[in-house]
């Protein structure tokens, strides 16, 4: 079935909006920009720590364009949707209650030692 031009445009619009919200995992290098000591000081991106000392960041499409225009080299590794934490990673109330009951029962079962110094 032939799709209407209007539907295509709408779909493209939605895809572009989603793309703008995406976060890319990136490592940034000085590229054409001379590698000065402070080349990475004002990248204006969401940096994350890196154990090897690389300049790693979560960047948007707009960040990517800006960095490339500045002459920097950007290597992209992965893309993430803008979404909340996967609900499967959140402790359910049932599981939480079971954990808490266990903790509290263990605590209740023991009176504790006589302190070195009484309060």
């Amino acid at each position: 079935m032939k799709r209407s031009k209007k539907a295509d445009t709408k779909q493209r619009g939605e895809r572009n909006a989603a793309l703008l919200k995406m976060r890319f995992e990136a490592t940034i290098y000085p590229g054409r920009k001379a590698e000065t000591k402070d080349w990475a000081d004002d990248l204006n991106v969401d940096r994350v720590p890196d154990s090897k000392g690389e300049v790693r960041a979560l960047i948007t499409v707009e960040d990517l364009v800006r960095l490339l225009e500045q002459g920097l080299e950007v290597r992209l590794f992965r893309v993430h949707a803008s979404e909340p934490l996967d609900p499967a990673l959140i402790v359910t109330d049932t599981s939480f209650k079971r954990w808490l009951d266990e903790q509290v029962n263990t605590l209740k079962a023991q009176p504790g030692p006589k302190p070195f110094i009484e309060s």
Partner: protein
Amino acid sequence: MYRTIAQLDAAIESLVNTKPDLCTRVALHNSVEGRTIFALRLRAGGGTDRRGILIVGGMHARELMNPDAIIELAFDLAQAYTSESGLAYGGAQWSALDVKVMMETLDIWMLPCANPDGRNHVMKPGGQWDWRMNRRDNPGTPCDGVDPNRNCDFMWRVIGPTTVCDPCSTTQGFVGSLPFSEPEANNIHLLCDTHRIDVFVDVHSFSEFVLFPWGHAPTQTTQPLPNFTSLLMGFCRPLDPPGHQEFMPPTDQLKYQTVATRVADAIRAVRGRNYVLKTIFQVYNGTTTGTSSDYVYSRHIANPALRKTFAFAFETGPALGDIRQSFQPTDPEPIKNDTKAGLVALIQQSICAIEFIGETLQAGTVESIRVARDELLLPTEKGRGWIELVTSVQAELLGTVLSDKALTKRAISLLSRVHKLAAKRDKATVSARDVEDGIEFLESLKSRATRPEVREAISIVNRQLKKAAGQPVEAILKKLAKSNPPKL
């Protein structure tokens, strides 16, 4: 798996209700969205004006593991104490006596989730997994959020790779409208102002680092001035002058390195992960300002009337290929165990045996001992070696002393004598009786010590003590400052 804000709050409430003699809950400033932010204090037994440690987690919303780890640690400590069973995370272990000493000589403060609104935003439908800041609605902009760990009153609005003045920057490092404008940051200030905090740690993720000041500039140990108090701040400009290096007394730097090494050793003992020691500046190799750790450590320099607090930060968990997995691993349990072990090691390092016996127990002072240590031993590497020898075994020895009333009494009496000798150290001479008393006391400790290193440390001290009879106190300490202690 990660707990919600409601679950974290319920856990604190249950702990406090179950063990009110051990745990106290304190409501701090409400969050931007009006949530009550709670701190928790753990302590057992009596004694006033104890040393305190403050453990903070969840300042950055997306770093989900740490609030869970801190809450679990609170339960673990309370259970280990009440059941007299000790603590174990993998291969890192603490005896029941170790836990008893921690719980009964310190006030252990925890702020498990400093930024509850941010955590809620990460988890709620419509939220963002990678949200870092609080949920401040920045007036006049469509952009939300202030980074609480760039909002503290230290070199505020001096910009760098992760510190920005634009609320709409994707950096997620907006500094806010004023220092401590954000309750999530101001609660650190509140706790430090209202309670005795000697050691501080802000737990972040990720990359497996144990961090300490400074963050705004590289650290140097030779030129005290100019220091940060004379630098420009508040103008949204980079650090000025650009090459500034911030002073830290070499003795503080050594203390940071020593304690951080012990923390990293404890973490390694869990399952072999290697946490690396760095300054906060080294994390991004650039100026990082307004952080809680720098603020807390800088307080005594900005205002000499305030107590010095040694402030650390952890970056928990490895830097994986996938950033989302690094922040929010599917299985955070092994990393939480590393973190808990590091925190217990830091708690144990916060104990000062001499201060507890001489001041908290006796309501006296050990100031002259502190001064003699700082003036005669601290300035030399060899002298610091002797301090290190004592601090490496003091927590276990304190437990032995406190477990026996007769030993405690003798420790108080001996410390009182040492205090008097140290107070007149230029004239006072150590008598044969002093030596005899000291050796007899240390031998009693040695016979009860469980670890060979502790017995060896006592033997080393005893050998020095035997040579002390008839010697002036100052001469003994000066000699120690020039001789290396044998390695344990």
